[in-house]
């Protein structure tokens, strides 16, 4: 009994260790405990318990050791807490010192001075700045640094600060002599972190619903918001030699447009955002949000500027994943590796495709296959060798059922790509001027350049400072069905792991989803309170014969039912698209040459076509517990609303052939 009481008293301070009051109490209690121990045995013995003296001694020894251990642990925890408490008090105390925009320039050198004590020459002017009241410098440490107190301004910054300060560190010497203050708005009613598709869709939604809204987009890229799909599709098929600079492409209907959602004149400059009469959308480029203060409703940028908000959207997207073997392979390999996502990656890869003889794409999903086809197309006019390798058995192996994946692989091969399936990369090295890729089964591939398309890592760095939940299954910020993470914080796009009422919790990395979720987030930021309901779709083109649109959960591990139109001579994809004028973009541009690839890829003469399985067009249903959760429209276009309806209904259909009839796959 007395053991329990003591244990409880020891646990209590541990459990409540973050509160000041209890800390003080705990101290007292601990001391009391330690004093009490010698007393208790006497009482115990006097009551005459059974058991030998030896046993009792052992008992006391064990308990005593536990108490001392517990007490020691508690003491350490409390000491650590005291330090953290001190830092917190310091931070709160230094907050009243508001930072004026001009100060970041002077503060930044102050940090660098603290950070790089080994470079005294750089410090000459910044050192004077550090002599200034330490409060502003302390103020610029949003994350409590262990043991930092007002007096210790020279304390080197840690982790997040070093990361962000590292960039200004190199720029600071140039900044200090010419401190032209870049004016940011100090407050944005609507703050959108990230300048991609989801962010732009949200901005548009907000502006449509809230008259005169002032929206600030902060992006670490140098570009205004643009759309990504053309970077791996249309831009590669453009006839314009200056496409790398203009970034314009031809749409399915023949009309040309830029990848940028809007030209620069659409946006308001950040300085004018607070003043312009009817509000607008401003984009702050080249700035990264490194810290989020949810309690104070503000964010901190990499240059220590603070911007407060009323409502915030996190649309930070993600960064391409890399293979560990490449990361560890050394600089000669990594500088010959492209992780493809942004405009600059497209420009770089375009240049590489002209300057090298061999490119290998690692990855057999959407991006990898599209790039392989794009580069394969280009290789027709040059002596560029294009290789694609991936662990699956066929292209889109994780998306398409096996028979279709095999069929697609054959099509990709006919685009001029050397496809290596079931390839696991074991090691990569740079030898004799070539990048050497060793596969697990012993095969060796020698190439000039690697493109790694092995997935996306959602950017959730802000989760820590903002105290937001990160999903362990899908990655990304965990949000509810209305895309809300906290009261005034929403997340949309690639970084959002949201609850889909029909299909369950998921995270989607497609363009249309970014648009749909961005729009929804914008609506909810202006009070709509609507859940994710309109199902987004996605599409892909792999050469002139394969174009599909899809919706819902399209995972090859699910059972599927595919209904295909039995091909007759007139039902080739090429004939279908030419007749309807819709369909595959790449084909519309290269109609003249399309006939030859088609002829070569279907070597069987028409009579044989009837017998051999030709998956020219059709619809594939993906089932989960007998309910259709995903649909692919294979070379069948303009039917997405029907597909969306079927998924929305979520019904069990006894005969999927009957459902397939709704699509009229033979028409076109």
């Amino acid at each position: 009994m007395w053991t329990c009481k003591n244990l409880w008293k020891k646990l209590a301070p541990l459990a409540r260790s973050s509160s000041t009051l209890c800390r003080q109490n705990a101290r007292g209690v601990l001391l009391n405990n330690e004093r009490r121990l010698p007393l208790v045995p006497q009482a115990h013995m006097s009551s005459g318990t059974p058991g030998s003296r030896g046993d009792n001694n052992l008992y006391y020894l064990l308990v005593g050791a536990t108490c001392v251990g517990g007490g020691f642990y508690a003491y350490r925890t409390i000491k650590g807490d005291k330090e953290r408490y001190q830092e917190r008090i310091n931070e709160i105390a230094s907050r009243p010192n508001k930072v004026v925009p001009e100060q970041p320039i002077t503060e930044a050198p102050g940090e660098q001075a603290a950070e790089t004590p080994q470079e005294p020459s750089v410090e000459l002017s910044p050192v004077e700045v550090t002599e200034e009241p330490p409060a502003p410098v302390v103020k610029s440490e949003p994350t409590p640094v262990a043991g930092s107190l007002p007096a210790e301004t020279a304390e080197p910054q840690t982790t997040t600060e070093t990361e962000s300060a590292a960039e200004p560190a190199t720029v600071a010497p140039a900044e200090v002599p010419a401190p032209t203050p870049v004016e940011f708005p100090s407050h944005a009613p609507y703050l959108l972190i990230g300048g991609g598709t989801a962010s732009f869709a949200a901005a548009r939604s907000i502006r449509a619903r809230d008259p005169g809204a002032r929206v600030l987009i902060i992006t670490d890229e140098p570009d205004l918001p643009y759309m990504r799909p053309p970077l791996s599709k249309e831009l590669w098929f453009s006839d314009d030699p200056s496409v790398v600079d203009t970034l314009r492409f031809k749409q399915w209907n023949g009309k040309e447009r830029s990848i940028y959602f809007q030209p620069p004149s659409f946006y308001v400059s950040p300085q004018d955002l607070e003043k312009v009469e009817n509000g607008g959308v401003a984009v702050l480029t080249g700035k990264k949000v490194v810290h989020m203060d949810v309690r104070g409703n503000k964010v901190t940028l990499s240059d220590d500027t603070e911007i407060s908000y009323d409502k915030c959207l996190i649309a930070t997207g993600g960064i391409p994943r890399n293979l560990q073997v490449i990361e560890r392979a050394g600089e000669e390999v990594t500088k010959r590796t492209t992780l493809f996502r942004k405009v600059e990656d497209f420009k770089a890869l375009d240049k590489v495709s002209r300057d090298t003889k061999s490119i290998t794409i690692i990855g057999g999903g959407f991006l990898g296959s599209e790039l392989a086809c794009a580069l394969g197309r280009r290789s027709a006019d040059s002596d560029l060798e294009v290789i694609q390798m991936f662990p699956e058995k066929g292209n889109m192996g994780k998306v398409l059922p096996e028979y279709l994946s095999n069929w697609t692989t054959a099509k990709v091969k006919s685009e001029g790509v050397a496809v290596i399936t079931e390839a696991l990369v074991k090691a990569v090295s740079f030898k004799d001027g070539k990048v050497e890729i060793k596969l697990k089964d012993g095969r060796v591939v020698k190439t000039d350049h690697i493109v790694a398309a092995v997935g996306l890592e959602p950017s959730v760095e802000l989760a820590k400072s903002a105290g937001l939940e990160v999903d362990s299954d899908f990655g990304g910020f965990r949000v509810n069905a209305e895309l809300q993470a906290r009261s005034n914080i929403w997340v949309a796009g690639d970084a959002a792991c949201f609850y889909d009422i029909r299909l369950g919790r998921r995270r989607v990395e497609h363009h249309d989803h970014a648009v749909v979720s961005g729009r929804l987030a914008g609506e909810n930021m202006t009070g709509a309170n609507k859940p994710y309901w309109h199902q987004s779709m996605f599409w892909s083109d792999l050469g002139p014969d394969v174009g599909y649109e899809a919706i819902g959960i399209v995972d090859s591990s699910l059972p599927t039912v595919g209904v295909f139109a039995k091909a007759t001579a007139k039902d080739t994809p090429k004939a279908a698209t030419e007749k309807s004028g819709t369909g595959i973009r790449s084909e519309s541009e290269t109609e003249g040459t399309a006939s030859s690839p088609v002829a070569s890829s279907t070597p069987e003469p028409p009579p044989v076509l009837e017998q051999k399985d030709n998956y020219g067009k059709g619809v594939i249903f993906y089932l989960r517990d007998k309910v259709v959760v995903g649909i692919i429209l294979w070379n069948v276009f303009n039917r997405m609303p029907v597909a969306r309806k079927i998924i929305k209904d979520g019904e069990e259909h006894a005969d999927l052939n009957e459902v397939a009839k709704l699509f009229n796959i033979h028409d076109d």
Partner: protein
Amino acid sequence: MSYCKQEGKDRIIFVTKEDHEAPSNAELIADDPNDPYEDQGLILPSGEINWNCPCLGGMASGPCGTQFKEAFSCFHYSNEEVKGSECIDNFRAMQECMQKYPELYPQEDENEGVAAGGADATAPDSSPAPVASSDSTLSSPTPESAPSSDNTPPTDSQAAS
């Protein structure tokens, strides 16, 4: 005749045109036009204008969004014999604004496009459309404002409701 085969967990059915001639007996649940979750067309069930309709492209959200909203609202609620005849000033203000941004609003006849009004849009409801194609944003099926972002033929006839 159609034939069917099974490859593991995947079923494959080949059907001819005749097989699919008979109307489908698959049952779809009737849509509720007042479903609050659904994306609405240009005109909401309440009669108000849905400024967030993708069919409008960026008209309501751009630099001239306010003027556009005023002009179009005036037109929409106008009960004059010649609809919108009292809205000339609003339209003029809108046109003046748009002239300041020729890049965004290429100068074609604005009045014609807007006055025709209506929800005739085949724009996919989930693609941000360029503002540039102002002349036919509303009046005609909007290939320009449509699917630049997703590059598919307009698959979602959103405004039909």
